[in-house]
């Protein structure tokens, strides 16, 4: 057997001096580690995080430290009005809302949940079911103060946050799945911006024209595989969904009080209920088959999971003709170098209906909040117009207040037809939120995994994928 070469045994008998320096080395390393531990103790225990152990109202948002810093003006304004309520914004990073919610749940599990959480439609019912406090008593108490907010906000956005007759959040920003169009691609195809009531056949024709006038590095339609803006807008336009949609009773106290005069008052309810799978509905299959054909014909990409990070860059460099997105996209395109005339928006195409899908978000008060009254003051303050103007200075999302979706917001960025954003709600008042029952994570997983299978094969594969989606959804909806 051969000796293997180990550096330490080169000179076993004359290694004294080497050992001495090695001993010094070990000692230095040990002392260094102890020094680092002592010196960085606040860092190691998180004690240096500002406000960590304070009793300040802890507000969790999805975003980076930069997003938290951007809300500093908001916090200062709130503090000047309520000097007795210190506020700490805690930015939680996540690739998407599902990530963010699982972080919040982890915080609950770790025993230090935030007091207030910014929750999007994706998590509205999860929070309402398990974590959030209804706003009902506060709304009744402060009805006079809050009346003005509801007058400025479309009832469809509010209804998305009703759950079994109670309201849990005041939505501050929202986005519908409208259709973004690349102006240069339209021009190359010799087309004008489509009409407001274009239908899915017009859409196909537009995509074909775009495709035939470009080379291989261009894709007419880009869409992502997720709950918002993926397959659901098409399902809604075709007057169906992959879950049954019912509405809960209740909520009349609220609607009568705040939206008594609204023309759509009669259709408002105690909130959406998505309690059973509906994946094998003929219209669902028809919709998936349409998308499958788009992909097969090379008019649309196979949708990728996750966010589709490349999207802004691809659209801005004119490699994409059209994609569904909301007002949140304007600022990103602007920053990626698109001029106001380089892109435009239009309603989502019509099919059996022109019902749109939207998502919205607002603050929810946690049931575990130490001081719920203070939390409500934050919620109420953030819904005020001055606060919303501080919170949304640029079109990186759409404000829920109609009065704020105006020319000045889009002056620097375009698009020309920015009115489409809020008109979506007025023109199509049945537009509905992202279908997200309390079991949202499992539902989204089930949807995503079967969408990609359904649209990348044959017509028969659509049917089998919908069968599989139906089964997965049954499993997902079984537990609460």
């Amino acid at each position, binding site marked *: 057997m051969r000796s*293997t070469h180990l550096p330490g*045994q080169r000179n*076993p008998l004359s290694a004294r001096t080497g050992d001495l320096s090695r001993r010094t080395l070990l000692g230095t390393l040990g002392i260094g580690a102890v020094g680092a531990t002592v010196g960085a103790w606040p*860092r190691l225990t998180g004690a240096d995080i500002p406000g960590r152990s304070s009793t300040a109202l802890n507000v969790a948002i999805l975003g980076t430290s930069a997003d938290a810093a951007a809300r500093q003006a908001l916090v200062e304004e709130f503090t000047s009005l309520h000097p007795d309520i210190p506020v700490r914004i805690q930015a939680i990073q996540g690739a998407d809302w599902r990530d963010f919610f699982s972080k919040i749940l982890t915080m609950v599990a770790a025993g230090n949940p935030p007091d207030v959480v910014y929750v999007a439609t994706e998590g509205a019912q999860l929070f309402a079911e398990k974590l959030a406090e209804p706003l009902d008593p506060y709304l009744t108490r402060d009805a006079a103060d809050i009346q003005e907010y509801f007058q400025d906000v479309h009832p469809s956005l509010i209804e998305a946050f009703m759950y079994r007759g109670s309201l849990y959040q005041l939505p501050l920003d929202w986005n519908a799945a409208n259709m973004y169009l690349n102006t240069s691609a339209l021009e190359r195809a010799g087309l004008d911006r489509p009409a407001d009531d274009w239908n899915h056949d017009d859409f196909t024709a537009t995509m074909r024209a775009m495709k035939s006038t470009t080379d291989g590095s261009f894709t007419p339609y880009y869409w992502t595989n997720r709950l918002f803006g993926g397959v659901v807008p098409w399902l809604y336009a075709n007057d169906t969904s992959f879950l049954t949609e019912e509405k809960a009773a209740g909520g009349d106290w609220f609607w009568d009080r705040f939206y008594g005069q609204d023309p759509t008052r009669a259709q408002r309810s105690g909130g959406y209920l998505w309690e059973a799978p509906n994946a094998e509905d003929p219209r669902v299959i028809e919709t998936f088959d349409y998308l499958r054909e788009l992909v097969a014909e090379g008019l649309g990409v196979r949708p990728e999971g996750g966010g589709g990070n490349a999207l802004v860059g691809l659209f801005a*460099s004119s490699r994409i003709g059209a994609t569904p997105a909301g007002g949140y996209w304007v600022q990103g395109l602007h920053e990626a170098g698109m001029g106001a005339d380089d892109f435009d928006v239009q309603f989502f195409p019509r099919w059996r209906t022109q019902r749109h899908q939207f998502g919205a978000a607002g603050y929810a008060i946690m049931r575990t909040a130490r001081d719920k009254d203070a939390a409500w003051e934050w919620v109420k303050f953030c819904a005020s117009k001055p606060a919303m103007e501080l919170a949304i200075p640029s079109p990186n999302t759409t404000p829920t207040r109609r009065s704020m979706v105006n020319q000045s917001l889009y002056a620097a960025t375009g698009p020309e037809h920015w009115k489409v954003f809020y008109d979506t709600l007025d023109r199509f008042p049945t537009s509905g939120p992202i279908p997200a029952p309390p079991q949202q994570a499992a539902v989204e997983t089930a949807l995503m995994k079967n969408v990609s299978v359904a649209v990348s094969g044959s017509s028969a594969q659509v049917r089998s994928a919908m069968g599989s989606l139906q089964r997965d959804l049954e499993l997902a909806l079984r537990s609460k």
Partner: protein
Amino acid sequence: MSTLTAPRTTRTLRPGMAARILVLLVAAALTLGPVLWTLSTSLRTPSESFNLPPQFLPLNPDFTSYVEVFQQVNMVLLVVNSALVTLLIAVGQMATAALAGYAFARLSFKGKNALFSVVLATMMVPVQVTIVPVFMLIRGMGLSDTLLALILPAIPTAFGTFLMRQYFLGLPNDFAEAAALDGASPWRTFRSVYAPLAVPGMAIVGILAFNFHWNEFFRPLILTISQENYTLPLGLVTLQGNLGTGSISVVLAGVILSMIPALVVFIFGQRTLREGLTAGASK
């Protein structure tokens, strides 16, 4: 090689050697190509990110994406966190593995083999199996959402103990005998004689720990919540942005920045690691 056979062998080997080098070159290109593309794309503006044909060499570098990384995430804090976590885990593993490895290699005590088998068996326990109870333990210790929650559970190391045991077994016995004759205690024998000799072995444990934990994703994903406690890999994934608003060149700039510290350790540690691992594995 004998001089008689040498000319013939070299002649027949030559085409074979060329083929070998070609294979190695292709493999090296496939290994380094993606990294070069990442580097050059991070040095372009977002709208040029997807230009085809691709660039593998950064001509006309544009550093706006790097500036943007520092604006979007607290890069300095991410590096500090990753460095603290990996340094303390590495030193902790070196110390505990050296002690335990020494005991398993050179001390005699009851139940040694059984205990060593148990230690080895823990190598097969996936971290995902224990993460929920560990999470609850951490909560019980009041360490939820701290860097210590990442450090403490990672210090006991089965693989490191195994490596150090092998290393001590490979060291000559003479010193122990000599030290024993001098009346040295087992602790002094370890501290003055064997620990210094085992520095290269400990370096391997340290470098492996550094590499693994610098890049670790799963545990930080679960055990840290505040972005102030994020480590680099976590910060990078979230650079991708919410709902597709992240810019590819910014993400790639973050990727490149996160490589630098690991690259430094790699350059300085490569030799030790190679020698140590090759020795350890061929035993």
